[in-house]
C-alpha cells in the first residue's frame, strides 16, 4: 500500500461532455466538494496526449489515487489502464449525457446528475487502495486429470501438447472408461457441402472409435503419468497449490502437487432393471444400448446373433428414450442427448452385417446433436433403417419372439411389431461425487429430525471422487440430476470450485465427440486458471483482478456466514474457527462481503466504504424540491452494461437516479440500503441477474443470496414507517436495453405517486 495518498482528478470534455455539461462547474465540484487537490481537464482524455497527462502525474509521484470523469468504466479500458495506482471512474458519457435528452428544460437536472457522479467518484477513490496480490502464489504447471475415459485421455493429451505435465488418474485397470466397449463411433464429421449429385451423396458413416489410438498417445507421451486402479483419497489447497493423495489398489499412496484439476469422470450407464415393462431382465434378447454395443464388438463385423439362442437377428427394434424424459419414479427426467445417434449407428450395424434384417427405431422426438447429427440421420434413412414415430409401452416375450407394443403417433393407433431383438436406448447418469450441500445439510441441520432426513438423502449419494478437504464438502456442487453446476451460458467449464474444471458428461449429458471437444475446452481453462493463480489474479469472470478479500480478524464474530455463503467454497476455517480465505479459490464476487454482518470483509478497491461513501456523497435536495433521489445498485456483469448500452442506443432515464455498479448483487451490504434510506433517498433499485435453476448470475449463487437477504428489507421499511415499494429488486439480463431504463423510470413514477421520503436532512 502506498504510504501517502496523492489524489488527482481528470475530467474529459470530449464526446460532447464539454458541450452538454458545464465543465467549469464540474471542476469546481471536484475541487471544492470532492476535495481533490489537483483536477485537470482535457478535450480527449483517452487520446495519447490525455493518457500522457495522467501518466506523467503518476510517474512524477503526484498521483497515486486518480479519479477519471469521462465515459463508463466499461469503455476505454485499454487507454485508462494504470495498474500502479488506484482509480475510480465517473460515468459522465453513458451515465449522463447519453441517457438524458438535450435541451434547456433538462439542463439543470442533467448537470446535477453529472455533479453527483463527480462527487461519488471523488468519495470512492479516497477509500480505495491499489490492489496487490498476496504474494503467496507460485506457478505449478502440473495438471491432475481425474477419469481415464476418452474425455480424460483427451484432456491429458491436450494439456501435454500445450506443454503442461499431467497426472491421469483412472480407477480401472485399463483406460477407456465407459467408452471402451465401442465397436464403432458416431461419425465426427458432417456431410460435405454442395456435393455434385445431391445432398445425400457421401453421408457420414459409423467410424472407428479411435480408442486404441488415443490410449497409445497417452501411454507414449512423456508428459503424462498414468495411474491405473487409482483413486483420489484427499485433495486440498487451491489453484496453483493443490495437493492430492493418489491411492493405488496395492495400498500405496502418492502425494502430488497440482496447479489445477480437470474432472472428467464421464457417466454411468442407466440401470435398466428399472424397466420391467420392456421385459428387461426376463429375456437376454432385450438389451440396453450399452450392452448391445458390447455384443456388436464381439460380433466384430460378422452376423449379429441373438444372445438367447444364437439365432441370426432378422428384425430388431430400438426403443428410444427408454427410462428417460419421463417423470416416472426411477426414470431419468432429462434427455441424454446421445442415444438417438447411438441407435442410428447400431441399427446400421444390422443393415451392414445381417443381410435383409429389418431395423426399426421407435422414437418420439429424434434428436441428433453434434457435427454429423442430421447428416447421420439421413445416412441411417438411406441404409433403410425404418424410423417410426411411436411410443413403446411394453415388450412381451412369447414363443421365441418379442412383441413390441407401441402407439404409432403419426397414424394415431395402438399397434405392435414382432422382432428378434430389442435394444433399449437408455441414458447417461453423471458419474459425480455427492453434492457437497447435501453433506452440509447434515452438518448444519438444526434438529435431529432434519439431520436424519438429510442423512437419508446423503446415504443414497455416490461415493466421493475428489475427497476435497474443503469446509464446504468433498466434491463439486450439483445443479440438478447429479450434474455438476456451472454457468451454463458464459463459463460452461467453470465449476463452483475454482481451479477444478468439469469436462464431458459430468457437466451435462453428451456424446463422445462433444465430450472430447469439452475436454479440450476444460483443459485450456484449467491451464488459464493455474497461470492466473501464479499471478494472483482471478479466474472468470473477473479475469486479471488482483484484489482479494481481506478481513479484520479483531472484528470477526465467527458467525461463519461467509464460509457458508461463498458460492465457490473458497473459505475454510482455521483451528481457531476463524475464516481462512484461499484467495486463488476466490472469484472476487464479494458475496462474503455482502454476507458479513459486522462488515469486516473488504477488497482493496471494493468495500463497504467505497460504495457506502459514494451514496453518501450524493447531494440530496430537500423534500419540497420535487427532485427525488433514487439509488440504483447495478450488477456490473449484466445490469450495468445493459444501462450503458441503453444509453448508447438513445434510451433516456430519469435524472434522479444515481447508479453504482456492484461486483454482484451478492456483494450488496444491507448497510448500504439502510444508509441510503437514512440519507433521504426516495427509492432504491437493485438490479441483478436471473437466479433460478436457469440462473445467469456470473457468481452462481450471488443473485439468489442477495434476493434472500433483501427479502427481509420490507420489515425494515415498515419499521421506518416507509412504503415497501421504495426498495425493488429486479432480475435484469444484458439484453434488457429497453427494460433496464424502464425499471428506473418506473421507480421515479412510483416516487411521484407515493411521495418523497421524509428522511431528508
Amino acid at each position, binding site marked *: 500500500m502506498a504510504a501517502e495518498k496523492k489524489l488527482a482528478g481528470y475530467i474529459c470534455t470530449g464526446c460532447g461532455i464539454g458541450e452538454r455539461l458545464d465543465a467549469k462547474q464540474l471542476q469546481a465540484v471536484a475541487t471544492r466538494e470532492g476535495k481533490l487537490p489537483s483536477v485537470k481537464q482535457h478535450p480527449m482524455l483517452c487520446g495519447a496526449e490525455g493518457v500522457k497527462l495522467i501518466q506523467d502525474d503518476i510517474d512524477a509521484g503526484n498521483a497515486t489515487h486518480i479519479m477519471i470523469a469521462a465515459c463508463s468504466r466499461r469503455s476505454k479500458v485499454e487507454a485508462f489502464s494504470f495498474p500502479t495506482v488506484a482509480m475510480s471512474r465517473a460515468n459522465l458519457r453513458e451515465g449522463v449525457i447519453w441517457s438524458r435528452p438535450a435541451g434547456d428544460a433538462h439542463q439543470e437536472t442533467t448537470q446535477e446528475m453529472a455533479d453527483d457522479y463527480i462527487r461519488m467518484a471523488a468519495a470512492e477513490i479516497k477509500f480505495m487502495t491499489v490492489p496487490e496480490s498476496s504474494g503467496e502464489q507460485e506457478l505449478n504447471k502440473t495438471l491432475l486429470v481425474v477419469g481415464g475415459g476418452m474425455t480424460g485421455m483427451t484432456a491429458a493429451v491436450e494439456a501435454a501438447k500445450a506443454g503442461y505435465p499431467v497426472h491421469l488418474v483412472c480407477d480401472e485397470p485399463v483406460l477407456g472408461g465407459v467408452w471402451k466397449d465401442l465397436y464403432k463411433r458416431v461419425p465426427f464429421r458432417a456431410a460435405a457441402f454442395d456435393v455434385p449429385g445431391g*445432398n*445425400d451423396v457421401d453421408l457420414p458413416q459409423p467410424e472407428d472409435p479411435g480408442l486404441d489410438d488415443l490410449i497409445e498417445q497417452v501411454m507414449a507421451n512423456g508428459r503424462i503419468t498414468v495411474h491405473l486402479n487409482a483413486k483420489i483419497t484427499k485433495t486440498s489447497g487451491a489453484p496453483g497449490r493443490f495437493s492430492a493423495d493418489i491411492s493405488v489398489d496395492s495400498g500405496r499412496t502418492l502425494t502430488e502437487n497440482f496447479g489445477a484439476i480437470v474432472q472428467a469422470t464421464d457417466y454411468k450407464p442407466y440401470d435398466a432393471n428399472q424397466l420391467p415393462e420392456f421385459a428387461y431382465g426376463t429375456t437376454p434378447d432385450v438389451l440396453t444400448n450399452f450392452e448391445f454395443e458390447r455384443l456388436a464388438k464381439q460380433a466384430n463385423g460378422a452376423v449379429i446373433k441373438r444372445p438367447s439362442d444364437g439365432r441370426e437377428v432378422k428384425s430388431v427394434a430400438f426403443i428410444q428414450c427408454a427410462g428417460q424424459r419421463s417423470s416416472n419414479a426411477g426414470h431419468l427426467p432429462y434427455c441424454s442427448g446421445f442415444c438417438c445417434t447411438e441407435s442410428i449407428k447400431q441399427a446400421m450395424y444390422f443393415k451392414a452385417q445381417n443381410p435383409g434384417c*429389418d431395423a426399426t427405431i421407435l422414437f418420439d422426438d*429424434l434428436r441428433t446433436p453434434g457435427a454429423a447429427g442430421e447428416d447421420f*440421420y*439421413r445416412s441411417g*434413412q*438411406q441404409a*433403410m433403417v*425404418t*424410423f*417410426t*414415430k411411436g411410443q413403446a409401452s411394453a415388450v412381451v416375450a412369447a414363443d421365441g419372439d418379442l412383441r413390441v407394443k407401441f402407439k*404409432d403417433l*403419426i*397414424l394415431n393407433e395402438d*399397434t405392435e411389431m414382432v422382432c428378434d431383438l430389442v435394444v433399449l436406448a437408455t441414458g447417461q447418469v453423471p458419474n459425480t461425487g455427492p453434492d457437497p450441500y447435501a453433506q452440509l445439510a447434515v452438518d448444519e441441520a438444526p434438529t435431529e429430525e432434519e439431520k436424519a432426513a438429510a442423512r437419508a438423502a446423503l446415504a443414497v449419494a455416490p461415493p466421493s471422487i475428489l475427497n476435497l478437504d474443503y469446509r464446504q464438502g468433498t466434491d463439486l456442487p450439483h445443479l440438478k440430476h447429479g450434474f455438476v453446476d456451472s454457468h451454463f451460458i458464459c463459463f460452461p467449464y467453470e465449476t463452483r470450485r475454482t481451479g477444478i474444471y468439469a469436462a464431458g458428461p459430468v457437466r451435462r449429458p453428451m456424446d463422445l465427440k462433444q465430450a472430447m471437444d469439452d475436454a479440450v475446452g476444460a483443459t485450456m481453462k484449467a491451464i488459464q486458471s493455474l497461470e492466473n493463480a501464479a499471478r494472483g489474479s482471478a479466474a472468470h469472470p473477473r479475469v486479471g483482478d488482483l484484489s482479494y478479500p481481506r478481513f479484520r480478524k479483531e472484528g470477526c464474530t465467527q458467525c461463519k456466514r461467509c464460509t457458508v455463503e461463498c458460492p465457490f467454497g473458497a473459505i475454510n476455517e482455521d483451528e481457531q474457527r476463524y475464516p481462512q480465505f484461499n484467495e486463488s479459490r476466490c472469484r472476487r464476487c464479494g458475496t462474503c462481503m455482502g454476507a458479513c454482518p459486522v462488515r469486516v470483509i473488504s477488497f482493496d478497491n471494493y468495500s463497504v466504504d467505497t460504495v457506502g461513501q459514494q451514496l453518501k456523497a450524493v447531494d440530496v435536495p430537500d423534500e419540497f424540491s420535487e427532485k427525488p433521489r433514487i439509488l440504483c445498485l447495478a450488477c456490473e456483469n449484466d445490469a450495468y452494461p445493459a444501462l450503458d448500452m441503453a444509453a448508447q442506443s438513445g434510451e433516456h432515464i430519469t435524472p434522479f437516479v444515481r447508479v453504482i455498479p456492484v461486483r454482484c448483487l451478492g456483494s450488496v451490504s444491507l448497510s448500504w440500503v439502510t444508509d441510503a434510506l437514512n440519507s433521504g433517498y426516495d427509492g432504491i433499485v437493485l438490479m441483478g441477474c436471473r437466479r433460478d435453476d436457469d440462473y445467469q448470475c456470473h457468481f452462481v449463487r450471488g443473485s439468489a443470496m442477495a434476493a434472500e437477504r433483501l427479502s427481509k428489507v420490507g420489515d425494515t421499511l415498515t419499521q421506518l414507517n416507509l412504503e415497501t415499494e421504495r426498495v425493488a429488486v429486479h432480475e435484469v439480463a444484458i439484453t434488457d436495453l429497453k427494460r433496464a431504463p424502464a425499471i428506473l423510470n418506473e421507480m421515479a413514477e412510483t416516487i411521484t405517486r407515493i411521495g418523497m421520503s421524509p428522511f431528508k436532512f
Partner: protein
Amino acid sequence: MGELNTAMIERYRNSFLKEVEANVEEGEWVKMCMQCGVCSGSCPLGKFWEHPPQEIFMMIRAGKREAVLQSESVWMCTSCYNCIVRCPRELPITHIMHGLAHYAKRLGLVPKTNPTAKFAQMFWDNLMVKGRVNELKLGLALYFMNGFGDGIKVALKNQKLGMAMMKTGRMNPKEAFGGHAVKDLAGFHKVLKKAQELEDARIAQNGPPAGA
C-alpha cells in the same frame, strides 16, 4: 388385376417400402421422409385427404399396402407443388403421389368410384383418338359421366355459357362429329407405342413378380 397384385404381396411380404422403392416413380425417396409434417400442412387440399402425404409415407413404412394403394388420397393431389417447395428434405412429394397412383392403377387397386381416376381415364381415352384433347367431347363425356338424366340436367344448366362460347368462336359444335387430329396421327401413336414398350421393359427389369 388379381394375379399381379397377389404376386407382389408374396414377393415383398412385410416390406412394402421396398416394393414402393422398386416400382413407384421416385419411390426411393420415401425412406428419407423425416415425418415433420410440413407437406401435410402445406397442402391446400390437406384437410380433405383421408391420409395427407406425411401419413401416406408413414403407412408405407408401416407396411399398410392395401390402405395406401386403395386409398383415394393419392388421387387428391392437384400438382400445386407446394409440398415439394417446402419439404426440408427435398422429397419430390408430388411426383411420389402420382407415382403411387400410377402403381395402384397398374395393380388394378384404384377405388372404382374415384372421380379423379375416372376423369384421368377419360382424358387418356379422348387424347388417344386424335392425338389431341377434344374439349367438346371431353366436356360432354364429363356431363354424362353419372348417367344420361344427370348429363341433360348439367347441359341445360350450362346452356347460356355454351351459346356465348359458340358466339365468340370459343367452341365449335362441329368438333362433336369426329373432330380434327394432330398432323401425323400415325406417328403420334408410334411414339406412344414406343414409350409403352420402354416402360414395360423398365418394369420387367425390376424383376418379374415372384411366382409369375
